[in-house]
């Protein structure tokens, strides 16, 4: 509602009132109002001179209160600092637990290939099928199948060894001119750690050069191989995974045992056979059973081999940008690190903003509500 919406009568009276208070001359029709104003003003309490002097002094001293210092400014600052610290810690925890940093640091994984990446099921104490077998010791014992078992695995699963198959995928970015050299390096590195190149495909054709390798390497040597390959070219991505094949192994083992027992029973039955037809029938069963036992044994061997040898798929792509900027020199690495730091800082700032914004809005709403309620409570004093 604007001032112009006031009725003319009200507007006229307000104008006259302002004129009276400003000691301006008013018309005869407003003399009664002027008298009313004078009466109210004349009857208003006068300030006591002694109080006026005291107030003058306090104003001159800028309300300095040596006996009653300001309300714990240090404590207020401390509370502010504490609140900020808590906010920062909460933010950092959310950032870390939310995986913001994980996404960035994943690029650094090649530098430390033993680190378990997201998605990998391996846990400390988990049996590493390719761990050099020892008869006994602190790290584990060896089964008849030559499979190492960790103490924790033994405790947790009883006498059943734990078999874990490991695999990984690595993508390298090599300058176009170095594709062949990188491919040769991959082969050499694999052989150096006792692994084999199961398959490979190298295509050298300028910027569209590429190479793919399927490597099999003793599981304990996988981290060393990844580390070695990482030094050949820039790492674009790395993923590692583990798969527990213990159950499959024990099931296969149990199946073989059952079939062998059945075979033994059949041999006894063959010895006790009295007719030719009976002998032939049993012989056929034994032959079929032997085939199944051979297949199951081969499967067992494959499982053990799978646990012993890790598979690594390596893709090599060209990195034109890396080549043009001078490859992976210290300046580029520093630049990359700086960008990563900025990236993380931005991520933290974003998360902090996302946390602080609703908190600030909530605080604003609470403050506004409290102020409104307080003012309403004050207004109720008129009704008391």
């Amino acid at each position, binding site marked *: *509602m*604007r*001032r112009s*919406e*006031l009725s003319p*009568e*009200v*507007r006229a*009276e*307000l104008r006259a*009132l*302002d004129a009276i*208070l*400003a*000691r301006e001359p008013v018309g005869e029709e407003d003399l009664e*109002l002027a*008298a*009313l*104003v004078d*009466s*109210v*003003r*004349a*009857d*208003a*309490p*006068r*300030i*006591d*001179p002694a*109080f*006026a*002097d*005291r*107030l*003058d002094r*306090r*104003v001159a001293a*800028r*309300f300095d209160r040596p006996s009653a210092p300001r309300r714990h400014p240090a404590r207020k600052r401390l509370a502010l600092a504490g609140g900020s610290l808590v906010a920062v810690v909460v933010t950092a925890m959310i950032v870390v637990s939310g995986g913001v940093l994980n996404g960035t640091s994943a690029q650094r994984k090649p530098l430390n290939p033993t680190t378990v990446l997201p998605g990998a099921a391996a846990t400390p104490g988990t049996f590493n099928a390719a761990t050099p077998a020892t008869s006994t010791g602190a790290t584990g014992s060896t089964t008849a199948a030559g499979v190492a078992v960790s103490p924790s695995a033994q405790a947790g699963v009883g006498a059943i060894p734990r078999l874990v198959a490991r695999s990984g995928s690595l993508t390298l970015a090599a300058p176009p001119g170095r594709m062949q050299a990188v491919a040769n390096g991959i082969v050499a590195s694999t052989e150096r750690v006792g692994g084999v190149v199961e398959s490979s495909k190298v295509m050298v054709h300028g910027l569209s050069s590429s190479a793919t390798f399927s490597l099999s390497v003793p599981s304990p040597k996988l981290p060393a191989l990844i580390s070695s390959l990482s030094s050949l070219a820039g790492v674009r991505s790395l993923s590692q995974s583990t798969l527990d094949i213990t159950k499959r192994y024990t099931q296969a083992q149990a199946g073989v045992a059952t079939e062998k027992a059945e075979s033994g029973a059949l041999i006894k039955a063959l010895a006790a056979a009295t007719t030719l037809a009976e002998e032939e029938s049993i012989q056929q069963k034994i032959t079929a059973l032997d085939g199944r036992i051979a297949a199951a044994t081969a499967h067992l061997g494959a499982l053990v081999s799978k646990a012993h040898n890790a598979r690594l798929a390596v893709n090599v792509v060209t990195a034109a940008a890396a080549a043009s900027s001078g490859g992976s020199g210290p300046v580029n690495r520093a630049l990359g690190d700086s960008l990563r730091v900025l990236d993380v800082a931005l991520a933290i700032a974003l998360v902090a903003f996302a946390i602080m914004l609703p908190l600030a809005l909530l605080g604003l709403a609470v403050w506004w509500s409290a102020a409104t309620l307080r*003012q309403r*409570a*004050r*207004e*109720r*004093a*008129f*009704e*008391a």
Partner: protein
Amino acid sequence: MTATTCPPSGTGDAPSGSARHAGGAAAQFEALYRSCASDLYAYVASMLRDAAAAEDVTALAFERAYRRRALFDLRRGSPRAWLFAIARNAALDELRRRARSGALVGEPVDESTRVEVDDELGERRLLVRAGLAQLDAREREVILLKFVGRLSNGELARVLGCSESSAGTRLHRAIKRLREVCHAPQ
């Protein structure tokens, strides 16, 4: 007593610059104090009807205004309106405190306002005083803010927390009611 009355804000020597500028803030506050002290005390004392409490509230209002002077924003109203709003809140807090504690405070026996009823002027003052006492507390307040505090209509609206037209309407009604009770047969 060095405080004096002056024309309502905007026309007098009240600070005109933003109180955010720390350099001139103290001087501006000093000018505000000089221009408002008497009117502010008169308003607060009329509200509270207790001289001692009025002194406390007046001093508290000035102290709060001084300590919060950096928060004052000229765009949201004049310094005078801001000061009266602080004093009003402090006075209402005092009234609430009294209501909670059940304190009984009578009319102040103020020698300075003692009225001689010999003349017509004195009779009229007594009549108006009685009329004011009969008004609703909100009506009485709006009259005190205008007549004693000498706030402009915009300042009045700012202090009361309503629109300017609403403040004008409230003031008009309060004056009308005061006239009615003053002219009513005693």
